[in-house]
């Protein structure tokens, strides 16, 4: 009898530190050789858009340049670059081969499992760094957060009545 889908997924997601260490040389080598850049980009695009999809609150993260921000955040050293490639491998393996090719529900489940992993795991730490970069970029635009109903840049207007309750929108 076939395993339930969530159990299959759980099995794939059980990426231990050992498995990650085994994956690391592959990740580093692929970085050296520039292998699968196109595929990496597809996975990262799907990843950032799972984190922050297009919806009534704003555009998808990929449409704001989040993939480039992510790549930049993980550049500068082989070790950093390898971390990004480990993240990509983790996502692809967990999604059954291709994170980008998976349906939205599976992608959500994959990222959710990553999000819920122990904070002591390497994969979670890499995920948090990636997530943080994307969030800081996406919500670091005053124009975008204004569109969500949140206050934009605090100057030149400042805030008139900080001693009064905030209504949750606009300047005060």
């Amino acid at each position, binding site marked *: 009898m076939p395993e339930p889908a969530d159990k299959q997924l759980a099995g794939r997601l059980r990426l231990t530190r050992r498995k990650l260490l085994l994956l690391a040389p592959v990740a580093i080598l692929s970085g050296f050789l520039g292998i699968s850049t196109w595929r990496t980009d597809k996975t990262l695009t799907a990843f950032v858009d*799972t*984190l*922050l*999809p297009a*919806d*009534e*609150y*704003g555009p998808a993260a990929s449409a704001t340049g989040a993939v480039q921000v992510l790549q930049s955040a993980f550049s500068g050293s082989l070790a950093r670059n390898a971390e990004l490639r480990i993240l990509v491998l983790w996502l692809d393996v967990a999604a059954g081969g291709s994170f980008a090719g998976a349906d939205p529900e599976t992608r*959500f489940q994959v*990222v*959710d499992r990553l*999000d819920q992993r122990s*904070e002591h795991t390497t994969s979670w730490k890499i995920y948090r760094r990636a*997530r*943080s970069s994307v*969030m*800081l970029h*996406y*919500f*670091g*635009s*005053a*124009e975008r*957060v204004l569109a*969500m*109903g*949140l*206050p*934009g*840049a*605090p*100057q*030149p*207007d*400042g*805030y*008139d*009545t*900080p*001693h*009064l*309750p*905030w*209504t*949750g929108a606009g300047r*005060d």
Partner: protein
Amino acid sequence: MLIVGAGAGGAAAAWALAKQDVQVVLVDAGPEFTADEYKVSDDDWERQGFPYKPGSRGRHEIAAGQELLDRWSGLRSFYAPRQRRSSRTHRGTREYSHVRGIGGTTLHFTGWIHRLRPEAFEMNTRFGVAADWPVSYAELEPYYLQAEQMIGVAGPATVAGRPRSGPFPTPAHRPSMLSQVIGKGAEQLGLSFVPNSVAAPSVDYLGRPDCNYCGCCHKGCPRGDKGSAELTFVRPALETGNCQVFPRHTLVELMRGQHDELTGAVLVDGAGTRHSIVARHYILACGAVETPRLLLAMDGLGNESGQVGRNFMETLSSDVIGLHPDQIGSHRGYPEDSVCWDYNSPDAIPGTPGGALLVPLAASADYIGPARYASRLVEGFGTSFKQQLIETFGKAAGVALICENLPNPRSFVTLSKDAVDENGMAIARINSFLPDMELERLAFVTAKAEEILLASGVPKVLERVTTYEHFASSHVMGTCRMGADPEKSVVNGSQRSHRWKNLWISDTSVFPSSGAGEGPSLTVHALSLRMADAIVAQVNGAV
């Protein structure tokens, strides 16, 4: 008169001398900053910090930190999400947070403007710790008042334990919602938060506008309401016509002459050109790291006592933060616009001499924009995450505290053994150690801060950041102690070198004790104004 360093001390001294018709040359190793460099109106404002630029920070080393012990687990830092703790076994090193430039570190300070308590000047006599100041509160009081008037301090009618001969020049700011919430929590514990005295006027003052509560003081104030020293003292000094200011000029040599007098200085400008200058008096005002560094690097100038670099005192502090259930809009308001003085007296904390103060916290922990919330406080992802972010923004609530830090033999500034600056002078090496007495004080007040936060309605502390876990200082003091005894101090009660008749020091390095968390800049201003009078008296032959 040559003044080296255009921060709180140098700027105030420049004005006080220039207004008495003394010709002043004020130099700083760092650059000038202009209001348009503070990018808090830009689309990416939240990702912009203070606009440091080449030369605006001095290089230094920080020696490896002490072992972190289990008994101080209440002082370990943790971070959102999940109250994550580091696995470090030894104290880490973050930074000595400072700015080199015209205005110095006041350019990015939040602007707490505090007098020290009268007892703080007698820590040795009264409590057997640190050293007494060779100046009393009463002697300094008129200078405190003068400095407050120059700055346009906004403050309440009275401040506990600090007698005043005149009112603050502008009324206190109305406490923000965050202050009100934290204040209510404190009340339940029998504590009180009262309006803080701050460097931004609450009404237009001497050509500066009133504060409009953007919370971005630490990124640099583009409106010029915050009273940083380039506005409050350098500008008036220039207006006297007796002061010239030269940014990007680094002191590399002070020449010793006969009769215990200095005979000249050598400065290097931003292009690398050397300039010689001869002055009647030389004032060092480079802060408690750079001033001792310069003296030690100049073959121990003024170090006859061996005390230069000793008695280093740092920022002993904690921040605790969580999410309040109500929408309080904590991104708005003057940061730390109220203060709890209940533990400020040197005998207020059980079992350890030295006081502390507590303030509300959100803006100074950077919780003033959605990006910080999204990356730290709000968990999850997807559309539901965006909804959650909208719901949560404005609810960050915290309490910050700074404690007294008493000097100890293992905390000092010396020279690096192998690292030099662009002029070939050894850079500073900061050695910091926190003995148990310091950690007991910090642990007590940190626990109080968490109690206050929980009593204010915050269900859980999500982040706790302490300087036990990492060395991180903005208030540094004590490395060229002032005192009456030439064997135990570097400068006398007028801040003049015990040996060199025309060498003066005017920054936090002269502090014999740290105070109990008060912002040190007002005391530096006041000391500098007093020192200027002493210099003029000496020039006029009165001394």
